[in-house]
């Protein structure tokens, strides 16, 4: 089953994403609270999709993205969580190898649609939106 890795230093955001993708849509979800942990989990679980917050202390999302792209064997979809659309942040993320963007505050319906588009129907016990 496809696995989603959510990386955010804010446990509040991780909780919302878990509720949306795991409880509602039935995806297999792995959480990481910082960049180091994210890289370790990515290696261990080989997620199909990584939801990556850009603004994190120490190792930020851009750097994590760059390292993921440098090391991954299979192609993972990387979705960057950004603070504002269309600014310099997005350009840098794109250069680092991000595929898609989701602007905070993000819509859970958009998140579900995006993940469904990339991964299909999840566990199937969730409601298709």
């Amino acid at each position: 089953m496809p696995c989603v890795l959510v990386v955010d230093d804010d446990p509040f955001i991780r909780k919302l994403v878990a509720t949306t993708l795991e409880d509602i849509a039935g995806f297999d979800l792995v959480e990481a609270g910082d960049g180091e942990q994210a890289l370790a989990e990515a290696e261990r679980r080989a997620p199909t999709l990584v939801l990556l917050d850009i603004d994190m202390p120490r190792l930020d999302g851009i750097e994590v993205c760059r390292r993921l792209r440098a090391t991954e064997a299979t192609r993972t979809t990387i979705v960057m969580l950004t603070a504002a659309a269309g600014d310099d942040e997005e350009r840098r993320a794109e250069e680092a190898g991000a595929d898609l963007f989701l602007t905070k505050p993000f819509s859970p319906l958009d998140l579900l649609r995006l993940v469904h588009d990339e991964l299909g129907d999840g566990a199937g016990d969730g409601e298709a939106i």
Partner: protein
Amino acid sequence: MATVPDSMRDEHAQLRAELEQRENQVSEKERQLERYAADLRETFKSERARTRELQVSYVATVRALTNAVEARDAYTGKHAERVTAYALEIARALDSSLAADQGVEFGFLLHDVGKVAVPDSILHKPEPLSAPEREVMERHAVIGCEILEGIAFLEPARAVVRWHHERWDGSGYPDGLAGERIPLSARVFAPADALDAITTLRPYRQASSLVEARERIAASAGTQFDPAAVEALLSIDDATLERIRREHE
């Protein structure tokens, strides 16, 4: 005037900056939650619309099936709709939750759906049926129940369809169930069906008056019908029954 020491000023500035950062974090969380709330509202709204749509298509489906059955029998006209209205009145008079169960109402409407499998020569025969013919005719209860198998929203309807010809004394068909082993929905339906049959013109006999119908049904309480269902029917006033008859002529 005492001057504020530099160290304290620095500390103030630091605290202010920290407070501002905290406030930003809180308002970010707030905006994120508002986003979730807005989507939740949207989802509920579209879910409600979808449920309504589904409801409409359920009713349309049942109506189409009912019409298909009735189209074959010019004499009975809107029999299914009248019987359904009578049966709902009886259910209400019994103060039963049945009247609120739309699945049961669908069962009242579809009670004869199995007649699609009965040949015209038997269905339309004006003379009494021979024993083998009657056997074919009586199969409509089981066939109807089978037709509705696997349709979740029609599950409560199946009991009416299968057992609407059972009799309180156990001499009915197809299973010879007696008394309260016959589901209430079917027990409520039986006198309603009789009422309509007696008060409607058929090729082989005249329509009888409401008074006569009441008498005949009352006489069969405890043999053909559940006495409680008969009592409930008898408690409904003439005006209500007349109105139903006129509305679905």
